[in-house]
C-alpha cells in the first residue's frame, strides 16, 4: 500500500551504485590514442547526435571516453545496463548525470520520479529540457551501452530529448546496434556523425602502436599485419592476442598457429590466456563471471571463502595486468568484466562446473540483499531459479520500490516469478493488483485483486496468515478493491469494501485505517451522503498523514473542498487546504506532486468567490505540481475548474480546450467520464450548440449506473438547463424540484442554492416573476454567508434583469438584499463608468449584427464569443446609447450616424 515503508533503504542504497553509473572510464596510461577518430568527433560541432555503433569489443567505450576526457567539465556520462529498463530508474540516472555538469538540471523532476504514479515520460523530458535551456556552455551527454535499453518508453523519451534539446547540447551514444530514432533524417540533414565498425577497426598502424608501444611486444611488421588481418582490426581480439603473447618466447609460432586456426578468435585466445594463469585466478574468474558488477566483499561472499587472497586485491591485480576487468569508480571499489570476456567466462563455467551456477547466483543474491539492494538481489535469485527466495524478496520490497516511481521494476519482478506461485500467494497477488493499478491497468488490477481476495477467503488456507499479517493483507486489499470498484461506478461494492478495510485494519496501523476511511468517504460521496463523505475524509486525513501517505491525504483534502462546496461551505475547507500546505513546507514536502491537489482545492473554492486572480494562481501551481497525480478525480477536478475560470474570463475556446485535454484520460473510469461530459454539455449550451447539448441529455438520462451521487445531481441540473434552452420551462422546473428535495434532505446547501437560482430563471422565463423573485431570494440568502458569487455571475444578463426587479421582492432577507446589491455591482458592466463613453470597436460590431436582426446566440457564434460576453456587450451598448431595447438602440445609433 502506498507509503507503508517509504524512503526505506532502496532509494538510499541505489546511491551506492550511482557513482559506478556516472563514472566516465579513464583511459589507461598506455592506451592507444586514436587521433583520426578523435578528429572526426571534434569536427562534429554541429551534429546533434554522435553515434558510435558497432559490435562488442570494438573499443566504442574507450573511444567515447578518450574523446570526452579532453573536455572533462562539459561532458556527463551514463553507463546503462538491462536493469535500467524502467522509465523512472532511467530518468533518475539521466538527471543525476546531467547534474554533474549542470547542477540545476531536473531539480523539479526528481520529486515527480519519487511519486508512486509516474507522470507521462514526455512531460518529464520536457521539464528536464526546460532546465537545460539555461546552460551557458556546450555540453555532451554520453550514454554508453545504449543497446541495453529495450523499453519503448525510454526510446521515445531519448528520441524526444534528441529532437528538442537546446543547441548547446550534444548527445553521444555508444551502442551495439542502432537505436530506434529517425537516423535517416538526421543523416540527411547532416546532423549526425557516425563512427561504425568499419572505422572502429584498428588500422595496421594502430595495431602496431598497440602491440608494440602499449604492450611492449616488439613484433616485426609482418607479424603485426598477420594479427591485424586475422582479427580484422577487432580491438578485443588484438588485446587477447597481446595478452597471450606476453611472456612467450615462441611468439612467431603462436602467431602462425593463431593465423591458421579457424576457431572463433575469442574462444581460442581466452583459453590460451587462462591456461597460463594460476589456478586460483582461473577459479576466481569463473566463480565471479556471473556478476554484473564486482567488488571485493561481493566476490568473497560468492566464492564462499575459497579465495586465497582478498577479493579487492585480486581485482586490483587483474586491472593492473589489463586482464578482463574495467574499473567503475575513482576509488577502485567497483569493477566489471568486459562484456565479451564475461560471456566467454560464463560459457566456460557452464561447461566445467554447471552444477555450481545456481549456488553462485544464490550467494550473490544473499550479498545484495544484505546490502539492501533489492533489484540485483532479486535478479540473482531469479537466475538461480530460487523462487521461494525471489518471492520473499518481492514480498519484502514491492512497497518501497513500487511506490517510489519504480512500479515498472516491481512489475518485471512479478512477471518473472512463476505464474502459479504468484497466483497461489495472496500477498504477491495483492502486490500485483496494486502495481497494476499504479501503472493504470484497471482491468488487470481488478482481476488480481479478486484472486487475492479469493485466496484469503479460501478456508483451506485459514490460519496460514496469522494476525496481524492476515489483517494487514485483507485491509489493504479491501481498500484497493474499493478504489477499483468506485472507478468502475460500482459504488455499493466500493462502500462495502471500504467498510471491510476499516474493520480489518489493525489499530496500530494508521495508514491502513486512513486508506479505509478515505475509500469510505469517496464512496459515500458517490452515494449522495455528502456529510458522511466529508466526515470520513476528515477522519482519514490525519491518519494518512501519520502513515506518511501524503499523496492520499492531500487527495482527500481536495475531495473535502469539492464536497464542502456542495454543502455550502467555502471558507473552512480553504483553511484546511491552507494549513496542510503550511505543513508540507515545514516537513520538506514542498516539491511533492500531491501538493497540487491542495492548490486545486484552493483554486476551486476561491473561484466560487469570484477571486479570479487567486484561483488562477493556485491553478497554475496545481498544473505544475499535480497535473500528473493520476487520480481521475483530480484530473477531472482540474479540467473543470480551469474550464470554469476560462469561461469567467470570457474565453470559451480555452474552456473547451481545458476539458478536451483530459477526455482521453478518463476512459477506464465511467463515473469520471460522465462528470466530464456534463461539464462539456454546459459548454455546448454556452456555445449555443443546442443539438449537441440535447443529444448529451438523451445519453445522460439513459446511462447505466447508480442513481444517487453528485454526478447524477450535477447531470440533472445541466439537463434542466438544456430543457430551459429548448423552451420547456415546465420540464426544467420538475427536474429542479426533484433535485432540490435530495439536496436539501442531505444538507447540500451549495447545490440547493444553485437549484433555487436556476428555478428563479426558469420561473422568469415561464412568465412568473413573483415565483422567480422568491426563489432568487432563497438562493441569495443561502449564498451570502460564505460568499458564493461565480455561480450567480455565470447566469449573466437574465439574472441581472431579474435582480433589477428586486424592489418588488417582499420576502427577501437582509443578507439576500445585501448579496443582491453586491452581485448587481459586478454584473453591471458599466458599474465603473461614470459617463457613457463612445462605443468600442467590438461593441460597434455587435451593434451592427443587432441591427441586422441577429440573435445573441448568432452573434456569439459569428464573433466567437460566449453568450455572456455578447450579453455584456449589448447591455453596454444599451446603457451608452441610453436605449431600453434592441430596436430603440438601433434607432438611436442610426440617428447618431453610427450605422
Amino acid at each position, binding site marked *: 500500500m502506498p507509503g507503508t515503508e517509504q524512503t526505506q533503504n532502496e532509494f538510499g542504497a541505489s546511491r551506492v551504485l550511482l557513482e559506478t553509473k556516472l563514472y566516465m572510464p579513464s583511459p589507461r596510461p598506455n592506451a592507444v590514442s586514436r587521433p583520426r577518430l578523435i578528429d572526426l568527433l571534434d569536427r562534429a560541432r554541429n551534429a546533434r547526435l554522435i553515434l558510435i555503433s558497432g559490435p*562488442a569489443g570494438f573499443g566504442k567505450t574507450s573511444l567515447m571516453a578518450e574523446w570526452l576526457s579532453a573536455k572533462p567539465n562539459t561532458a556527463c556520462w551514463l553507463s546503462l545496463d538491462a536493469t535500467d529498463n524502467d522509465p523512472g530508474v532511467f530518468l533518475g540516472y539521466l538527471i543525476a548525470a546531467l547534474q554533474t555538469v549542470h547542477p540545476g538540471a531536473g531539480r523539479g523532476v526528481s520529486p515527480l520520479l519519487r511519486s508512486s504514479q509516474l507522470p507521462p515520460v514526455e512531460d518529464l523530458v520536457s521539464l528536464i529540457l526546460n532546465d537545460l535551456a539555461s546552460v551557458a556552455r556546450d555540453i555532451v551527454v554520453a550514454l554508453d551501452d545504449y543497446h541495453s535499453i529495450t523499453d519503448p518508453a525510454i526510446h521515445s523519451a531519448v528520441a524526444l530529448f534528441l529532437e528538442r534539446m537546446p543547441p548547446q547540447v550534444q548527445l553521444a551514444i555508444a551502442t551495439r546496434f542502432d537505436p530506434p530514432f529517425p537516423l535517416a533524417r538526421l543523416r540527411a540533414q547532416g546532423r549526425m556523425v557516425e563512427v561504425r565498425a568499419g572505422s572502429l577497426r584498428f588500422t595496421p598502424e594502430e595495431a602496431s602502436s598497440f602491440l608494440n608501444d602499449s604492450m611492449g611486444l616488439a613484433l616485426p611488421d609482418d607479424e603485426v599485419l598477420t594479427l591485424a588481418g586475422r582479427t580484422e582490426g577487432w580491438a578485443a581480439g588484438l588485446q587477447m592476442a597481446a595478452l597471450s603473447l606476453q611472456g612467450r618466447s615462441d611468439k612467431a609460432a603462436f602467431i602462425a598457429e593463431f593465423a591458421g586456426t579457424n*576457431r*572463433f578468435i575469442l574462444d581460442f585466445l581466452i583459453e590460451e590466456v587462462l591456461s597460463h594463469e594460476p589456478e586460483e585466478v582461473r577459479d576466481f574468474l569463473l566463480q565471479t563471471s556471473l556478476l554484473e558488477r564486482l567488488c571485493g566483499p561481493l566476490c568473497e561472499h560468492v566464492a564462499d571463502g575459497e579465495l586465497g587472497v582478498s577479493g579487492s586485491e585480486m581485482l586490483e591485480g587483474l586491472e593492473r595486468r589489463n586482464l578482463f576487468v574495467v574499473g567503475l569508480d575513482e576509488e577502485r571499489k567497483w569493477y566489471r568484466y568486459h562484456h*565479451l570476456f564475461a560471456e566467454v567466462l560464463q560459457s566456460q563455467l557452464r561447461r566445467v562446473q*554447471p552444477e555450481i551456477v545456481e549456488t553462485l547466483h544464490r550467494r550473490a543474491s544473499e550479498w545484495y540483499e544484505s546490502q539492501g539492494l533489492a533489484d540485483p538481489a532479486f535478479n540473482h535469485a531469479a537466475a538461480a531459479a530460487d523462487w521461494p527466495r525471489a518471492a520473499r524478496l518481492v514480498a519484502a520490497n514491492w512497497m518501497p520500490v513500487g511506490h517510489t516511481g519504480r512500479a515498472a521494476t516491481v512489475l518485471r519482478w512479478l512477471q518473472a516469478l512463476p505464474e502459479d506461485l504468484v497466483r497461489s500467494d495472496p500477498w504477491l497477488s495483492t502486490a500485483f493488483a496494486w502495481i497494476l493499478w499504479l501503472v493504470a491497468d484497471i482491468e488487470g488490477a481488478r482481476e488480481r485483486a479478486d484472486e487475492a481476495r479469493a485466496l484469503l477467503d479460501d478456508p483451506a488456507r485459514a490460519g496460514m496468515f496469522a494476525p496481524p499479517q492476515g489483517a494487514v493483507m485483507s485491509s489493504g486489499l479491501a481498500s484497493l478493491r474499493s478504489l477499483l470498484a468506485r472507478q468502475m461506478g460500482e459504488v455499493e461494492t466500493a462502500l462495502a469494501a471500504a467498510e471491510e478495510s476499516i474493520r480489518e485494519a489493525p489499530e496500530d496501523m494508521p495508514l491502513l485505517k486512513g486508506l479505509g476511511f478515505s475509500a469510505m468517504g469517496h464512496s459515500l460521496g458517490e452515494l449522495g451522503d455528502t456529510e458522511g463523505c466529508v466526515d470520513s475524509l476528515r477522519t482519514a486525513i490525519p491518519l494518512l498523514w501519520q502513515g506518511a501517505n501524503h499523496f492520499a491525504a492531500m487527495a482527500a483534502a481536495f475531495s473535502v473542498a469539492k464536497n464542502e462546496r456542495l454543502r455550502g461551505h467555502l471558507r473552512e475547507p480553504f483553511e484546511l487546504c491552507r494549513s496542510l500546505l503550511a505543513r508540507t513546507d515545514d516537513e520538506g514536502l514542498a516539491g511533492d506532486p500531491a501538493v497540487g491537489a491542495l492548490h486545486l482545492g484552493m483554486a476551486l473554492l476561491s473561484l466560487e468567490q469570484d477571486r479570479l486572480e487567486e484561483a488562477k494562481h493556485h491553478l497554475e501551481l496545481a498544473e505544475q505540481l499535480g497535473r500528473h497525480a493520476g487520480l481521475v478525480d483530480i484530473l477531472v477536478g482540474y479540467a473543470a475548474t480551469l474550464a470554469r475560470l476560462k469561461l469567467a474570463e470570457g474565453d470559451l475556446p480555452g474552456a473547451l480546450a481545458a476539458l478536451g485535454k483530459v477526455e482521453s484520460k478518463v476512459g477506464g473510469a465511467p463515473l469520471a467520464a460522465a462528470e466530464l461530459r456534463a461539464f462539456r454539455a454546459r459548454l455546448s449550451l454556452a456555445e449555443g450548440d443546442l443539438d449537441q447539448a440535447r443529444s448529451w441529455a438523451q445519453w445522460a438520462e439513459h446511462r447505466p449506473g447508480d442513481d444517487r451521487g453528485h454526478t447524477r445531481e450535477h447531470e440533472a441540473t445541466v439537463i434542466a438547463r438544456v430543457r430551459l434552452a429548448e423552451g420547456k420551462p415546465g420540464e426544467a422546473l420538475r427536474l429542479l424540484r426533484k433535485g432540490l428535495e435530495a439536496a436539501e434532505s442531505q444538507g447540500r446547501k451549495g447545490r440547493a442554492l444553485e437549484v433555487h437560482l436556476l428555478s428563479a430563471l426558469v420561473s422568469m422565463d415561464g412568465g412568473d416573476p413573483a415565483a422567480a423573485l422568491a426563489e432568487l431570494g432563497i438562493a441569495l440568502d443561502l449564498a451570502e454567508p460564505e460568499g458564493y458569487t461565480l455561480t450567480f455571475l455565470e447566469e449573466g444578463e437574465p439574472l441581472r434583469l431579474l435582480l433589477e426587479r428586486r424592489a418588488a421582492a417582499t420576502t427577501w432577507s437582509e443578507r439576500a438584499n445585501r448579496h443582491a446589491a453586491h452581485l448587481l455591482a459586478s454584473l453591471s458592466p458599466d458599474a465603473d463608468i461614470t459617463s457613457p463613453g463612445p462605443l468600442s470597436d467590438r461593441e460597434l460590431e455587435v451593434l451592427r449584427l443587432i441591427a441586422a436582426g441577429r440573435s445573441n446566440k448568432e452573434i456569439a457564434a459569428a464573433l466567437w464569443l460566449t453568450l455572456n460576453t455578447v450579453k455584456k456587450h449589448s447591455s453596454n451598448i444599451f446603457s451608452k446609447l441610453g436605449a431600453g431595447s434592441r430596436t430603440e438602440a438601433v434607432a438611436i445609433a442610426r440617428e447618431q450616424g453610427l450605422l
Partner: protein
Amino acid sequence: MHEQIYEISVQGSLDEAWQVWFDEMEIARESDDITLLRGVLQDQSALHGVLNHLLNLNLKLISVTSCCPIDPAG
C-alpha cells in the same frame, strides 16, 4: 505463430563448448570456416534472442533461413 526450424550460419568455427549457450540449437560444422546452428525456435522473440547473442559475441552472421513450420499434430 508455429514453431519453426531455423538454420543460422556464422563465420568461424565454434567448438562444442558453445553448445551450452545455444541450448535450443545444434552446433554443426558446415565447412572449415562456417558454423551452422540448427534447431527449433519457438517464435520470433526466440530467434532474436539467438541473433542478439551472436551479435554480443561479435560472431559474423552469414545467413538465417527458416524451414517449414512444425505441424503440432505431427
